């Protein structure tokens, strides 16, 4: 138990440094977009003064899913595709914890696709970061569901056969979607602002992060990096406000109110220019853990009385002397 005095002391102590959230040096490749996401998230933890012991990062399997190992919080590096259900279990048992999910395009959009759809529907209060580099990295360059058509990979040597899956459109098509955003790893300012907004959203915030893989697809996003006009910044007072400095570089902007779901779907359907910002935010969608009254205090007495009441329904009482048996209802 934490004593009151300890809490008091903490009030004065807590001005955490970035290093306090850094567990070990990441083993990602140099230039990997995961590094940018890690930097933004650690900054968020520091700025929000998140208690490390009250924060849990859950991940599946893949390059991005190494994420929890680099955070000095609680972490759960699970199995391929199942980060969301694990995180949902964590949140249901402990709504007092801050829950983040780090998942990749294979983890989320392929093997874990069922959990993605239903995770959106449950709308539990957690921040989901989809590290989308459009390739399987850890298993060495196989096409992922978000790989562009024609991409040559180890499993598609003559080019990927299918059109890529659009994670934004899919998410926006699911009932109960409450926060959908997209960012790119090479605009750190927006990356940070969006993750921060996602963290403050009550509900499941889904952030697709378009991320570079320097090992397998070093040039995939070169055209977008070289031409700021191919980024469409979404600008709104209820979304992300584009700073003056950023606006000088990224002039292609659109005013979009995140409450407008039709507008969000329209924006999501266009892949080029890449829309960046908050597409949709609805703070009124109920959270599953609230609907289920998670985190109730259960005393032994509550369990005992509940059990006794149920046993009463099924009990055959011995006949009392001279009397008829007591009905069990």
């Amino acid at each position: 138990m934490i004593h009151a005095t300890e809490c008091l002391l903490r009030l004065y102590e807590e001005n955490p440094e970035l290093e306090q959230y850094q567990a070990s040096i990441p083993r990602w490749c140099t230039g990997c977009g995961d590094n940018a996401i890690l930097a933004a998230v650690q900054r968020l933890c520091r700025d929000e003064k998140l208690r490390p012991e009250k924060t849990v990062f859950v991940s599946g399997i893949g390059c991005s899913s190494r994420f929890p190992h680099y955070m000095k919080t609680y972490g759960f590096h699970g199995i391929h595709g199942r980060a969301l259900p694990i995180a949902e279990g964590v949140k249901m048992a402990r709504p007092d914890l801050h829950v983040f999910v780090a998942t990749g395009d294979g983890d989320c959009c392929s093997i874990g696709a069922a959990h993605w759809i239903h995770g959106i529907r449950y709308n539990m209060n957690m921040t989901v970061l989809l590290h989308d580099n459009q390739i399987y990295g850890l298993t060495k360059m196989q096409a992922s569901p978000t790989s562009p058509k024609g991409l040559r990979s180890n499993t598609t040597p003559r080019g990927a056969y299918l059109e890529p899956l659009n994670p934004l459109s899919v998410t926006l098509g699911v009932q109960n979607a409450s926060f959908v955003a997209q960012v790119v790893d090479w605009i750190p300012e927006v990356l940070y602002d969006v993750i921060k907004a996602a963290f403050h959203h009550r509900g499941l915030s889904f952030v697709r992060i378009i991320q570079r893989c320097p090992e397998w697809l070093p040039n995939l996003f070169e055209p977008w990096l070289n031409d700021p006009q191919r980024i469409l910044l979404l600008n709104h007072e209820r979304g992300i406000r584009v700073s003056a400095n950023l606006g000088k570089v990224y002039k292609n902007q659109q005013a979009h109110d995140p409450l407008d779901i039709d507008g969000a779907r329209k924006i999501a359907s266009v892949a080029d220019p890449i829309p960046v910002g908050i597409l949709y935010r609805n703070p009124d969608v109920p959270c599953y853990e609230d609907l289920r009254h998670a985190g109730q205090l259960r005393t032994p007495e509550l369990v005992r009385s509940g059990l006794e009441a149920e046993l009463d329904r099924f009990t055959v009482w011995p006949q009392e002397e001279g009397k008829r048996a007591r009905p069990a209802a």
Partner: protein
Amino acid sequence: MTANADIQKLDYKEARRQNGNSMNDTSTLQFPNLAQAVRAQPAEKAVTTLAEHVVEIVSDSGEGAQRCGQSFGAIAARMGNGVWTVEIIPAEIQPPARSIAGASGNRIRFGSQPVTNGGDEADLVVAFNEQVLLGRVRAGELKPGCTILLESMWRSDRDARIVESYVRTCEQLVAEGYRLIEVPMERECRPLVSDARRGKNMFVLGMLCSIYSLDLQLAREQIALAFRKKDEKIVRANVKLLEAGHQWADANLDFKFRIPAVRATVPQVVINGNTALALGILASGMEVCAMYPITPATSVSHYLSEVYEKVGGIVHQAEDEIAACSFAIGASYAGKCAVTITSGPGYSLKQEAIGLAVMGEIPLVVVNVQRGGPSTGLPTKAEQGDLLAAMFGSHGDAPKVVMAASTIEDCFYSVITARKIAETFNMVVVVLSDANLATSQQPFPRPQFSEAWLAPPLDQSAIPDGMKPYDWDATTGLARRFIPGQPNGMHTLTGLAHDQASHVAYDPEVNEESIRFRSLKLAALQKTLKTPPVFGDPEGDLLVVGWGSTQGAIEEAVTRLRAEGCRVSALHLRMLNPLPGGIKEIMRRFRNVMTIEGNWCDRPQDAIIDETNRRHSALAMLLRARYLIDIDCWSEVRGQPIKPSTIYRVIRAKLQTSERQPT
């Protein structure tokens, strides 16, 4: 036919002669002649005292035979009789009416002594039409000469084909020696209720109360209980039907039985195995149950969904089996031990996640209500096919605790024990039940709640400096679990090979060390287990070993054989992994050891089966490997609970063969 005839000694030829005369008269559209033939004045009736009887009530789906049977079982239990009820379930929700495969209903075995299993073939059957009855006849579920009370309305049906089928069936059954009595159930109910088809189940209940001399007032109370959620008018209408059935049987049947009962001195609960599992979950203090619908496990979560929230628990219906298991693992990791419930196919799907819980040393209870397999198999039928999957499932070395409930009462307590073991050893505990226990009801002493059943409040104290998340004890492999929220305990749990600090580690020593410690925990648990008791003498010619729901039937057969002078005993295992100590010593005191199981073993009589290729039943295989004893096995995979009479014959045969062989 004499009124006081013992049902076992009835003169069936005489009955056939009497019945046959009326059966031939297909033009009879009115009240069947047979019941008149057996009509007798109540005053003349003598009451035959019996030790026990097996009664079946079968109807089309939705005609209420289930409710009738359950109520009958409950009344008998309240009389103080030993009772075991078994649901007769068609595989489809709405099978076509009047179809052989559509029999839905209940079997009630009740006696003077406690009843531990569904027993052998039925002594008396009530059927709402001749087709569902034929289904039971063809399944071999009726004793020779069994008394049949059959709805007679089909004799006067407008459809000539139905009349023909009915008459032909009746003739055939009488020719086969059954004691057939036609009862105008629906006609008798018609003056009392608007929908006589739905009402006749309570009429039948009244009839059975008369036949078996059950207390009618208890039956009225049982109806009030069964319809407690309904209108008072409905209760009254059903009581009227009950009384009508009782009067009809009193007036028209020339036999009456009594199965003496010893009134219970302690309160008993009458529930089925799945309700017992649900109550066990509630009583264990677990707070999260994640599941996905699957037969026959689902009814656990139906009941739990109804009651769990009252005590702050949550049933989460996940999007699939994998998610259900992962959700439970997440909840366990961050809080108290959670549970996931499933049956065979779902158990297969959960395997990778179970391995994760083993690797991360996350407490988890997995309940598998076994059904027939492999693949979709027999969804509603009983089998003990998942023992090896429970033990060896998931890839790599994934030691798990495996327990099997052997009675309804055991279903309740197993879950409480499982939760405790899971949290003490940070292990996955698999609790095996099966479709036989799932829907069977048996009274057992009302549990007395103990706070010790519950997990202690969640530990949120700071972790002492220098303590690691896997500080494996050198002897037992046990380590304190770090729970999110505990200051100073931050680490990342991983399914990758890891060292004491939970850092990913691929070096050979660390990998081997961590596997060793996870394995040692099973041995540490084993050291705490008691040797299971032997049923019968501690030495003899044959020891019959079983596990799971077969306990009652095995011990009943052994009791019969012992009464006949056979030197046979039984051993029933509840804890299957780890196996408690002392078992080898028990086995050594018997000339022969065999298992009796509800999973496949190759039949030695098959031409190409010999000792070099015979596949043994699951438990036999495990015991042979562990104890290096030549343990034989016998099994049946018919989807039905194994009957005590079958086991009796098997043991007899085994004793005869082994007599001929030198030891």
